[in-house]
C-alpha cells in the first residue's frame, strides 16, 4: 500500500527581481498512516513553501522546477486542475498558520464550515455533524458557535474550528502549517493538547510544520529538519533529539531556551545568517555557520542513510 503522502525530489523556486530564489531544493519525504511527521526549521528554511506545495496552492511567482507530490500514489502535480481540486478537502486537508485571517469575515462559522466541508459532499456537512466535531475539539456551546462570526471568536477558538473543519473532511493526510505560531502560550498549550488527543482517533497521516522544538517533541513520531530549502537530517524524534548528527541540528537543539549557560547567563545562538537563496554556493549551505567544517564541505554533501528512515546530509557522517 502506498504512503498517503510522499514527496519525491521536489524543488520549488520563486521568481524575484534579479533572479530566482530556491525555496525548496530536492526534498524527498513520506508519511505513513497513523504517523505524525514534523518538519522543523527556522524562518526562511522553506518549510511553509513545502507545505503549500503539498496541496499545490503556491503563491503567484512560485514555480515547481521538478519533483512529484504523491497522494496515495497519484502525483498531484501532474493531474488536471479539476482533479487536483477534487483531492483537496477530501484526501488532504490543511490547517493554516494564522487563524485571524483564515476565515471570511462576513460569513458565519456555520455557513463557512458547510461550504468547506460540503464542497465535495454536502452530506458530510449537516449541522449536527458540524456541531459534534466542534464540541469534539473543545469548543463550548458548539451549536451557538455555528451562528457566530469569526471576529467574535478568539484566535485559539478559530484554530480549533480550522482543525475541526479539516477533520470533518476525513482526509488521508492532515497538514498543519505552524498551527500554534500565531497563538499565545496558553492557547498554544491547548492546541498541542488537542492535537495529541486527536491522534488516537485520527487514523490518517499528519504533517506538522513548525519551528518550535517543544511542539515537535510533544506531537511527532518522526521529524525532518530543514535548512536553506533542504532536509538536512531526518529520523525518529527520539533519535534526533538524543543523538543529532548534523551540525545544524546539534546547534539547534543546543539553542533550547531551557539551556541557559550558567556562567554567562546568556541564551545560546547560532552565529551567522541563513544564506542568500538566490545565490547559493555549490557546497554545503550550512558551511559559513558550521563550527566543524572541513575543506571537503565546499563540495555538495552526500545524503548518508544511517538506518531505515534515518538520514543526514553531511560530509562528516559516515556509516
Amino acid at each position, binding site marked *: 500500500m502506498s504512503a498517503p503522502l510522499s514527496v519525491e525530489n521536489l524543488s520549488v523556486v520563486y521568481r524575484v527581481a534579479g533572479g530566482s530564489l530556491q525555496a525548496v531544493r530536492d526534498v524527498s519525504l513520506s508519511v505513513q498512516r497513523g504517523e505524525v511527521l514534523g518538519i522543523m526549521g527556522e524562518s526562511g528554511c522553506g518549510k511553509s513553501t513545502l507545505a503549500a506545495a503539498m496541496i499545490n496552492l503556491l503563491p503567484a511567482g512560485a514555480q515547481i522546477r521538478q519533483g512529484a507530490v504523491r497522494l496515495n500514489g497519484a502525483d498531484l502535480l501532474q493531474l488536471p486542475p479539476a482533479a487536483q*481540486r477534487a483531492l483537496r478537502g477530501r484526501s488532504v486537508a490543511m490547517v493554516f498558520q494564522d487563524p485571524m485571517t483564515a476565515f471570511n469575515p462576513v460569513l458565519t462559522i456555520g455557513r463557512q464550515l458547510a461550504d468547506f466541508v460540503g464542497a465535495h459532499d454536502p452530506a458530510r456537512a449537516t449541522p449536527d455533524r458540524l456541531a459534534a466535531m466542534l464540541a469534539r475539539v473543545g469548543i463550548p456551546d458548539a451549536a451557538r458557535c455555528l451562528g457566530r462570526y469569526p471576529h467574535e471568536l478568539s484566535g485559539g477558538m478559530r484554530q480549533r474550528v480550522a482543525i475541526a473543519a479539516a477533520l470533518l473532511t476525513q482526509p488521508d493526510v492532515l497538514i498543519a502549517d505552524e498551527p500554534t505560531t500565531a497563538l499565545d502560550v496558553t492557547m498554544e498549550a491547548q492546541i498541542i493538547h488537542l492535537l495529541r488527543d486527536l491522534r488516537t482517533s485520527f487514523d490518517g497521516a499528519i504533517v506538522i510544520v513548525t519551528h518550535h522544538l517543544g511542539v515537535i517533541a510533544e506531537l511527532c513520531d518522526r521529524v525532518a529538519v530543514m535548512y536553506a530549502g533542504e532536509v538536512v537530517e531526518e529520523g525518529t524524534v527520539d533519535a534526533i533529539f538524543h543523538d543529532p548528527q548534523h551540525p545544524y541540528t546539534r546547534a539547534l537543539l543546543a539553542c533550547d531556551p531551557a539551556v541557559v549557560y550558567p556562567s554567562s547567563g546568556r541564551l545560546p545562538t547560532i552565529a551567522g545568517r541563513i544564506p542568500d537563496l538566490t545565490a547559493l554556493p555549490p557546497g554545503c549551505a550550512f558551511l559559513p555557520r558550521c563550527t566543524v567544517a572541513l575543506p571537503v564541505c565546499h563540495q555538495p554533501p552526500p545524503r548518508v542513510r544511517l538506518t531505515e528512515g534515518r538520514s543526514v546530509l553531511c560530509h562528516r557522517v559516515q556509516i
Partner: protein
Amino acid sequence: MLAYAIRRLGLSLLILIVVMTVMYTMVFLVPGDPASLALGPRATPELKEALRERMGLDQPILTQILYFFGNVLQGDLGTDVWSKRPVLEQILEVFPNTLILGLVALGWALFLGILLGCAAVIWRDTLADRLLGVLSVSVISIPSFVVAIYALIIFAVWLNWLPAIGAGEKGDIASQARALILPAFAVGIGWVGYLARLIRASMLEVMEAPHIRTARAFGMSERNIVFRHALRVAIVPTISILAVGFGSILSSAVFVESVFSRPGIGTLITAAVEKRNYPVVMGTVVFMTAFYLAVITAADLLIARLDPRVRDVLRG
C-alpha cells in the same frame, strides 16, 4: 444592530441640523439681508421693510432659526419670492425627474461597470485589460456636461435621432424614455469607468485574501468561491462608494439638466440662483441634503447588515 442604527440616524440628524443652520444664517454674513437680496438693488426701502416683516427678519436670529426649523418640520421650506409659491411644492414637482435621471444613470453605469470590471479580472494583464484601464480613467475625467453637449450635438442636432430638449410628454412613457436616453448617458458615463475600476480592484484584492486560500484548500469550485465568498466581501465597499457617488450623480444632473433644458432640481436651482431667489435655493439645498443623508444612512445600515464587524466599531 438596533443600537448602531439609532446612533447612525442620530448622527445624520445632527448633520442635517448643522447644515440647515448654516444655510439659514449664511445670508446674514453678507452686507444686506435676505429681503434686499431677494428684491434686488432697485427696491425701495419701504418695499424692503415690508418684505422683511413678512419674512420675519425683524426678529432676533435665534427666534428666526427656531421658526425656520418649526416650519420645516411642518413641511414648509419657505416661499418663492417671485412666484409666491411654496418652495416645497416646486421641488416636489421636479424632483421625480431628477431622481429618475439619477437612478437610470446609476443603473446603466452599474451594469456596464460591473460587467467591465469582471471582464478585466478574467482577462487580467492582457492587452484588453490595459485598454479598458486607459478607457476607464479617461471617461472619469471628461466633464459630464461636455459629454452632454457633444452627445446632444451629435445625436439630437445632426442625426436627429433623439430629442434635444425637455423630459417628454406627461403620460407618454415612450417619449419620456427617449428624452431620458442622452441625459442618462451623459450623467452615467463617468461612473462606468469608476465602477469598473472599483469592482476590478475590489475583487482582485479579495481574491488574494487568506480566507480565499482556505476555501481553495478545501477544494471549493472557483465559481462558488467567487460568488459565495469573494463577492460578499467585495460588495461592501462598493455600496459605500455608490451611496457617496449618488451625490456626484446629482451634481452632474444639475449641469446636464441645464444642457438639455430638462425640468428638474438642476434647472430649478440654477434659475433661482440667477434671480437671487434665496428661499428657493435654500429650500432646495436643505431638501437635497436631507435626501442625500437619507441615502447615505440607508447605505451604511445596509453595510452594517452585510458586514457584522462594522456594528461593533465605536465611532472614534
